[in-house]
């Protein structure tokens, strides 16, 4: 494809984007959620550049100033080692977002093609894939993640893997359902009549038409995954000290909760805010991506 062709084929996509933007503007709650997400992403990118690294904060820590109340100098107070909680909460944004994105990304990478294959081919293959996902869905996701994480060994990377492994079956289900109804559509039949191989039909016709519900689900899941990572870290199965991970912070803060409420509350609020914002965004996207709303 040459350049002018590329530009021309991007134009209609841009037009679609503008429609989405228009719908977004009409929906105030979603707009706010989007601003929230943008804010979080900016924090995740910029803060680690501006602030000294986590280790630096650790070295900076002054045991004399441990568990100080929130003040102008330490807006969120300090922790048991005298580290600034505000800075650590900000630094934690990147860890949470990054892990959640990668975990959901991996789950998508496994779940979506499997679902498309199951739905498109049907029959025996479908049975096998879907019964396999049923096994996974039989466990509560957190429990499964805990089991896998403790089996793999407690660190952030393994927690991520554990979450991806316990999360993909949800996408498989969604995509399979879509694929089953899509495969009866005439454009799939037309493609078959042309002689397109199944690989092309799945990647060009089925998966692109499943995008909307998957995006909605994924953006809501990011909230859930962040919560799960925090939970794993809280249980000691995720991030390890001294990483500034929210769940870990909440976990350590338990010991000091009675005399230093800020130490638990602010990381907790960060988790709450992030999860809320992603859930609201997902909810709004559901409406925006709905073809019925787009038509008018």
């Amino acid at each position, binding site marked *: 494809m040459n350049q002018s062709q590329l530009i021309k084929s991007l134009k209609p996509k841009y037009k679609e984007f503008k*429609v989405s933007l228009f*719908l977004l503007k009409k929906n105030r709650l979603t707009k706010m959620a989007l601003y929230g997400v943008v804010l979080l992403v900016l924090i995740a990118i910029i803060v680690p550049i501006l602030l000294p690294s986590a280790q630096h904060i650790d070295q900076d820590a002054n045991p004399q100033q441990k568990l100080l109340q929130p003040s102008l100098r330490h807006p969120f107070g300090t922790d048991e080692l005298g580290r600034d909680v505000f800075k650590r909460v900000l630094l934690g944004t990147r860890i949470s977002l990054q892990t959640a994105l990668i975990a959901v990304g991996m789950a998508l990478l496994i779940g979506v093609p499997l679902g498309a294959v199951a739905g498109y081919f049907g029959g025996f293959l479908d049975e096998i894939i879907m019964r396999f996902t049923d096994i996974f869905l039989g466990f509560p996701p957190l429990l499964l993640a805990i089991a896998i994480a403790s089996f793999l060994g407690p660190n952030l990377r393994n927690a991520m893997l554990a979450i991806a492994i316990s999360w993909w079956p949800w996408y498989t289900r969604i995509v399979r359902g879509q694929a089953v109804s899509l495969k009866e559509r005439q454009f799939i039949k037309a493609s078959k009549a042309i002689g397109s191989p199944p690989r092309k039909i799945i990647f060009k016709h089925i998966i692109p038409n499943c995008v909307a519900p998957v995006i909605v689900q994924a953006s809501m899941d990011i909230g859930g995954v962040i919560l799960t990572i925090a939970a794993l870290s809280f249980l000691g199965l995720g991030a390890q000290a001294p990483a500034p991970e929210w769940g870990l912070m909440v976990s350590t803060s338990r010991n000091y909760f009675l005399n230093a409420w800020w130490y638990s509350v602010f990381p907790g609020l960060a988790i709450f805010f992030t999860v809320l914002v992603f859930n609201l965004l997902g909810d709004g996207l559901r409406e925006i991506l709905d073809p019925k709303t787009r038509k008018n």
Partner: protein
Amino acid sequence: MSERPYLHIKDLKINFVSYEGEKTVLNIDEIKINKGEAYGIIGESGTGKTVLALSILQLLEMPPGKIVSGQILLEGDDLLKKTQRQMQKEIRGKKISMIFQDPMSTLNPVFTVGEQMIKVIEENQKLDRKQAYKKAVEMINTVKLADAERVMNKYPHELSGGQRQRVIIALALSCGAEFIIADEPTRNLDVTIQAGILKLIKNLQRNLNVTVLFIANNPGLISATCDNAGVLYKGEIIEKGTTREILRNPQHPYTFTLLNAIPKNKDTKIDLSKVIPPNDGEEIKEGCIYYNRCLKKQESCKKQQKLLNVKDTHYVKCSLFREGVNNEQ
């Protein structure tokens, strides 16, 4: 003017609001339907047929819909002034019933036909269950469904498309509806089934004095069932009168084109010079709605068009008619 018509639509204008701004989807000067008459609306998809049907019942979604002006008088009562609650209590299903294209969406899939009918009859006519059952069977017989008692025990999905449509008509009648709006009721049905439904609707109109508003894109269906009809184009009635007059002696260039575009047989080729491509030509803000597709357009068409009298029973919204241009067709 002698009698008051049963349904009288006056200056009805409905807009749709979208992100591109407001657009007029319906702009009807006047439709009069007498009691016990079958009135046809001929119109292609996207001309506002369904909007018209829904707005009579106040079932139009608002927004995007917006009623700018007008009245819909049912026996002198303005339906647009009624609240949703009043519509539900007095009009919908009681006086006016609607038959949709897709009968499956009207019936509840989890109840048998009988249960649904009995429930509606019980509620509407204050009968006990036994009497309601009797009445339901009677109604199913009226719509000529064989084996009424067996049909009662079936679920909607167990019936064929034609049978479902008959059940809907039976439901409409069982509430004592005296006015039926049929929005392309035979669209997805086979021709043999279609013939049956058409006959049924026609018989109800003739024998039970039911008033019918029949909406279709196929002029043939209107021709077979309706006494009077209007041609809808982009939300405006551009020609109206007796069905015979409109179809035999079309005066508006659009009606003429529409009738000529229907294929007849192998040896009569459609003259495409009489069927020009859609939206080919300049857009005008005022004036004739058909301007940009019209083959006979002139300067005078850019002025506001009025319904002109061809005969007592035939009106056309085309200023060219006066100038005799359309006679050359």
